[in-house]
């Protein structure tokens, strides 16, 4: 590569007119020395890297914040009606469905949740999660066998949610149920998987 700055050449004079310093005022030796100082270069590198990192953070953090926002929000739990008390036969377990407390407007069918509701006697109801405690697959109720069975890895539960066979580590989780004014209501909860503390 040839040197770019040749002050005595007319062509390069034109070419150099866009540079920051006037070509007529060539840098003095001390100025030149300062420009080439390693300490200055190091500072400029660090400054650029620092500013770049800061810009990256300014651009990236809002995205990260938006993505982890659901971790910080706790949607309210709500009592949702699932039917009239007389719709449920004593000793039977049936599927009931209820809506999320505050679904997004475009949620569609996924705003609905199912549960297995059992009427023990009178006002005594139990609502079991449909999610197998092994890995969350939907368990099915076999009325004649009085068992819940999971299609994924063969988990089996008794009618009271206790594990009867297979890999599930825990009984089927339960939702809170109450009877109000003849309506059976279920308290919504986060997806019942993972540790029961959730």
């Amino acid at each position, binding site marked *: 590569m040839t040197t770019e700055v040749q002050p005595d050449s007319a062509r390069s004079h034109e070419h150099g007119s866009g540079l920051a310093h006037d070509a007529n005022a060539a840098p003095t030796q001390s100025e030149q020395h300062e420009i080439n100082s390693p300490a200055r270069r190091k500072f400029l590198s660090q400054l650029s890297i620092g500013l770049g990192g800061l810009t990256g953070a300014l651009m990236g953090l809002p995205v990260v914040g938006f*993505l*982890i926002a*659901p*971790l910080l*929000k*706790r*949607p309210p739990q709500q009592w949702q009606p699932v039917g009239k008390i007389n719709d449920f036969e004593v000793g039977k377990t049936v*599927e009931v*469905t209820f809506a*999320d407390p505050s*679904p*997004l*407007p*475009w*949620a*569609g*069918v*996924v*705003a*609905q*949740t*199912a549960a297995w509701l059992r009427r023990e006697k009178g006002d005594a109801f139990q609502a079991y999660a*449909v*999610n197998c405690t*092994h*890995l*969350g*697959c*939907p*368990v*099915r109720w*076999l009325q*004649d*066998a*009085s*068992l819940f*069975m*999971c*299609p*994924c*890895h*063969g988990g*089996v539960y*008794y*009618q009271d949610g206790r594990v*009867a*066979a*297979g*890999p599930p*580590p825990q009984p089927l989780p339960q939702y809170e149920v109450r009877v109000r004014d003849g309506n059976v209501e279920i308290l919504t*909860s*986060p*997806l019942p*998987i*993972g*540790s029961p*503390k*959730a």
Partner: protein
Amino acid sequence: MGVIHRMWDWIDDRTGFSGTIKPLLDHPSPAGAKWSYVFGSATLVAFLVQVLTGIGLSSSFVTSTSQAYDSLQFISHDPFGRLLRGMHYWGASAMVLFIGLHMAQVFLIAAYKYPRELNWLSGVLLLAVTLGMAFTGQLLRWDQTAVWSIVVAAAQAARAPLIGNGLVRFILAGDNVGGATLSRFFAFHVFFIPAIVFTLIGLHLFLVLYHGISEPPKVGRPVDPKTYRKWYHEHLQREGVPFWPDAAWRDVAASVAMVAVIVGLAAIIGPPALEKPPDPTILEAYPRPDWYFLWYFAVLALIPNNLEDYIIILAPLLAGGVLFALPFISNKGERSMWSRPWAMASVVMIVMMIGTLWILGEKAPWSPAFAAKYLPPEVVHAQSAGVSAGANLYHEKGCENCHAVGAYGGARGPNLTYVGDRLTTEQLTTRILNGGYNMPAYGGSLTPQQLDELVSFLQSRKRLPASNPNTADVGR
């Protein structure tokens, strides 16, 4: 002619193609690199298929939990949409397949050794993000299986200590599968992960150019980090051929064949069918992952229950750790697989293990046979009303979901076709009432009469009809 030449000269001068890009294409590569070297480029081309077909699909896919399923129906019923979906599925399959082959080949010829450790590490990361793409892609097929697969993924994440519940909320984008869940997976599948894939591919290819394509190994020619680079340089000077076109033509030919197969499969077999709608209240579900994760589905069924928490979380970390550590544990010495019997053995073992798990995952003998019907009379062969009633109970009480009689029923529990030969009335009664390993206790859900009927049905399951006096003691 002259005009075109002059135009090219002008473009070449202004772009610097001959000075910068051409040397990259012409770089000398080892002469012996033959067909086993095409897997990497095939993986890359499969990725390009995914990018193109993915862009095509995104032009009609609606990222909304209420409409994604309908938009997929629309895509699937349009001839080109169906072809695109098919190509995206078979392209994904090809990408997973070829990245596996590429990895096995690189491992077998120990191309990860000095100085190509980072080639390997960037490749391991590419494997991870490719599997990430495969998983998130399956979820965008927003049907019933997709929804339950998200729940299964979240349930696995939930097993992580301390951060488990946080991970679940991150995956679901909330407390439950809801409106935000699909958009999140869409963003990951279409923007975040591909950005990482592009970056890693850039790094991976740069490293291939920087270190050169590794030469086919020879027994008795170990890698010595002190001399390797000089030796490799001289080796290429002596025996190298320009990458383009001497080596590249095989990559091109293999990739063209692969793309032809992808398009062919997409046209003939098409994309995987959409399951039922993504309604979490439809509990008649049978969630299964696509083939690339079916073996892991089997792992989850088969690991001992008390080790699950550890295996679900630690096994993937451990596998990743081993892959990462590999080039540091062994970065010099023999490269040929013929002098590395353990390398060959581990590839054979991994392939056999995954293959076996695949077959099991496909059969899923641990899953209840929900579709089982009442046993047909010719199988029941009832000699009395009790046996006949017992056969009905055998179906109604769910026995058939896990046990087989003849060709009917599940495979979870022991086959009961000849159980009458094995177990006495007392033994059968005890097992039914008290249950056993992986068998529910029916004590609470059978009346004494039902129990008698069920036992007499099971007692009648013998090799030869019990009425034959000559076989009276066969049951011993």
